[in-house]
């Protein structure tokens, strides 16, 4: 708004750019939304809770990072879910693996990321993020005294 008052010509140009960029990336977003809707159907919250509640921590972390990577959830769904799981006795380590992969690794955002940065960079970045998430989970486990 402020920008419009100062210089309406430039602002119109900005909006034009915005629309053009948005339309360009729309197919990728559509692809992602379709994937998201199908994956969330195949892997509902209940399934995730079942697997994360596994008594063996390392199995739990493995499942957690797997589900975290392949799903995509907005924070306002993911964190309450984690809060419930925490009360159910799921360890911090497992939840940390879940939330961190959820945020950093995006198998579902792949179509968008690829459009911008190319396939190779996308894959490298996601693999690195996955390992960072595992390290974070380990450290969480150590700090909460769940490992030793």
């Amino acid at each position, binding site marked *: 708004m402020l920008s419009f008052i100062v210089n309406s010509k430039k602002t119109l140009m900005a909006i034009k*750019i915005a629309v053009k960029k948005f339309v360009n990336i729309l197919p990728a977003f559509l692809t992602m939304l*379709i994937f998201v*809707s199908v994956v969330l159907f195949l892997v509902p919250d209940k399934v995730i809770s079942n697997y994360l509640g596994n008594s063996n921590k390392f199995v739990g972390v493995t499942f957690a990072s797997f589900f975290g990577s392949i799903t*995509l959830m907005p*924070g306002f769904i993911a964190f309450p879910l984690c809060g419930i799981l925490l009360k159910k006795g799921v360890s911090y380590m497992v939840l940390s693996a879940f939330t961190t992969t959820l945020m950093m690794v995006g198998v579902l955002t792949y179509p968008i990321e690829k459009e911008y940065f190319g396939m190779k960079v996308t894959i490298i970045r996601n693999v690195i993020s996955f390992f960072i998430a595992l390290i974070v989970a380990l450290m969480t486990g150590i700090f909460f005294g769940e490992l030793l």
Partner: protein
Amino acid sequence: MKRNNIIKIVSISAYIAFILFSFMTGFDPGKQIGKNFITFSVDMLEVLPCAFVLIGLFEVWVKKETVEKHFGKGSGIRGYMWAVLLAGTTVGGLYVAFPVAYSLYCKGARFSVIFTYIGASAICRVPMTIFEASFMGIKFSAIRLLVSLPLVIISSILLGDYLEKRNYKIMEGK
């Protein structure tokens, strides 16, 4: 390329047809998928238009030199700090961070800085972190941030160096 487009159009129409068919016949899994689709679309439509208008304004107003100075080569450690701060204010998630990072790149930001930005916007968005802390405890969030942020920056620097050495270029004009 053309064949790819045809495949895309066909599969998207098949998807839409499937959802419509499910709603007409009351096929439950299809209805569920359709609902997921709508929930997520609405969620994104709340954020994306704003994000893209801001990106547009950014492209028009901010000079290339400014970005180069703060996010480019020679910006040193301050470049990463800016990237993290900027990421902290980002809303929405990775799907917003990608176009923003791309614009930064086109304006002359270096690879390691934009990867720091992407990583940081995944893990340390301020509203999200507060929300997280309220459910998981401050200790949990603090550990997560303190461990992951340095790792993100280090890995971004390594990845950035690697790409720069190989003269990797991202296609422009998206």
